[in-house]
């Protein structure tokens, strides 16, 4: 086995899973990303896993809108600006 970096070295299922979350979080370099995509396009089981995790991450991101700063707190934070703003 070569230790030279091979941009298009194929990934097996374990290798693909180990990099799946880095991929979904956009933390992979381009070469590893294309190796992962190549595996996932040909492996049903990894494709299903990747799709599930992608959809889960999207649902979690979407939950942002379900939690916002309460209005009373917003007013208190804005009030912190009062005296300073007049001073400038």
């Amino acid at each position, binding site marked *: 086995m070569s230790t030279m970096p091979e941009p298009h070295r194929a990934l097996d299922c374990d290798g693909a899973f180990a990099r799946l979350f880095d991929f979904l979080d956009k*933390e992979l370099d381009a070469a590893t990303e294309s190796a992962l995509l190549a595996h996932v396009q040909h492996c049903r089981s990894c494709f299903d896993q990747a799709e599930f995790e992608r959809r889960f991450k999207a649902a*979690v991101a*979407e939950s942002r809108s*379900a939690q916002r700063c309460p209005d009373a707190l917003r007013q208190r934070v804005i009030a912190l600006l009062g005296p300073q*703003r007049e001073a400038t």
Partner: protein
Amino acid sequence: MNEPAPVAPAPLTHDAFSALALTALDDVYRFARSLTRDASDAEDVVQETYLRAFRSWTTFQPGTDVRRWLFTIARNAFLRSRERGQREVILDDEGAAAADAEQAQEAWVRGGLDPILDRTDLGPAIVAALAELPEVYRSAVVLVDLEDQPYEAAAEVLGIPVGTVRSRLFRGRKLLQQRLAQHARDAGIIPDRAAGSPV
């Protein structure tokens, strides 16, 4: 094309900084909620964060991510407040202890969540499930999945190595999936029939 590339963004005025900082209020609130179990503690952290930010706004570098800057202040404010109060025991091992059970539940969780992940009304159940995670996992998931911060930024904000961000995210997401599946089943969103039983 002949214009010189801008070396640095123009300096901010205090008013411009304040307006920019306030655009991140929902984000800072969500992050504060991820750090504390208690809603009123989170409100204290948010107020303290903005108090410090408005005081030391000149140390903010224009052109950088104001949310990352505020998250770091919030984390420090949280640590300071915890020193004053009773120190919460951080159960870092909680996830590891449950690892075996997780393995067995994986298929059950995935099968249960799969049909409901695209629902638009899932937000409150996710917020509730997130609230049940130990803080170390919750804060990592909130920074990366909700606030879209890169690993490197999350590592800086939380004061941990990038590898730890990665492992907390992995564990945190698995725990979150379990809690969400449980919530969804309790709320009747996942029919028992479809979910099967958790082994």
